[in-house]
């Protein structure tokens, strides 16, 4: 009797958890699907001229970022200079999207257009890396990718970071 009672309570607790999870997944299915497919960036803006072919930065996952940087790709930090100073991916250069108009000419002087570039920002749906990627493609860079997990995923994976901490 006691055992039956406990079994029923356990079963009902499982149903409760399943219902809660189902409820949450129904409301947030897009977010979860984006997280699992590595597509956590907002939809790209509509192009002004439909006839111009639109090239988007290609999303890359953490493992690919490591391989690409090992083979010479340049990591570019799209966050503001204060966040960059506090901590950034080791070897990344700062090109804040908020200062892009001032900073881009200098960047163009330093980095050749044939170089592979990976942009990143604060992860979790931060759009700056994607916007920066688009600006770099417009500026003539041919191989631009976006690391959507950004600084948080890199740091949380225990990979090398630089900055004041």
């Amino acid at each position, binding site marked *: 009797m006691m055992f039956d009672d406990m079994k029923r*309570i*356990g079963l*009902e*607790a499982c*149903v*409760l*958890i399943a*219902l*809660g*999870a189902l*409820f*949450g*997944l129904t*409301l*947030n*299915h897009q*977010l*979860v699907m984006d*997280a*699992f497919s*590595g597509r956590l960036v907002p939809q790209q803006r509509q192009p002004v001229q439909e006839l111009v072919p639109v090239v988007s930065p290609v999303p890359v996952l*953490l493992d690919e970022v490591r391989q690409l940087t090992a083979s010479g790709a340049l990591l570019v930090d799209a966050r503001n200079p204060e966040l960059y100073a506090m901590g950034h991916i080791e070897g990344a250069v700062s090109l804040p999207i908020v200062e892009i108009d001032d900073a881009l000419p200098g960047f163009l002087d330093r980095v050749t257009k044939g170089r592979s570039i990976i942009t990143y920002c604060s992860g*979790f*749906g931060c759009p700056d890396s994607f916007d920066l990627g688009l600006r770099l493609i417009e500026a003539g860079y041919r191989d631009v990718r976006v690391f959507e*997990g950004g600084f*948080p*995923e890199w740091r*949380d994976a225990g990979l090398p970071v630089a900055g004041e901490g």
Partner: protein
Amino acid sequence: MTGVQRVLYHLARLALALVFVYAGAVKMQDVVAFAGHVAAYQILPYAMNYLVAATLPYIEFLAGILLLLNLRVRPALVAVGAMTVCFMAALVSVLARGLEIDCGCFDPGGGQDVTAGVALVRDIGLMALLALTWWLRSRTITGSASRE
């Protein structure tokens, strides 16, 4: 069951209900920020943080509502008890690794930093309250020979 115990039972049940309804509701407001807090624990793979953030607040909220309504009280206690045990395990792991993070237990955007140590002590209190409510509830059922 004495009158004092009955009052105590309802007080404990309502306190738990408020804790979990509130905890669930504030996190539901900003699932992405909560995913950030879950990620800070550095336990789960990247995308799993989102899965937890998208489901856990709703389970807390639902269990809280059942406690509030005095319905399916013991299953709700088991559900929140199981979750609290998981939180405590996560907090112990955070302390063991020396991470300095906000527990993310309640408002993900509130900026009220609660350290893992404080959160763990609070969870121990919560477990005690859960156990008390369970015990009093069982006495109610035995006393009145009714089912949940």
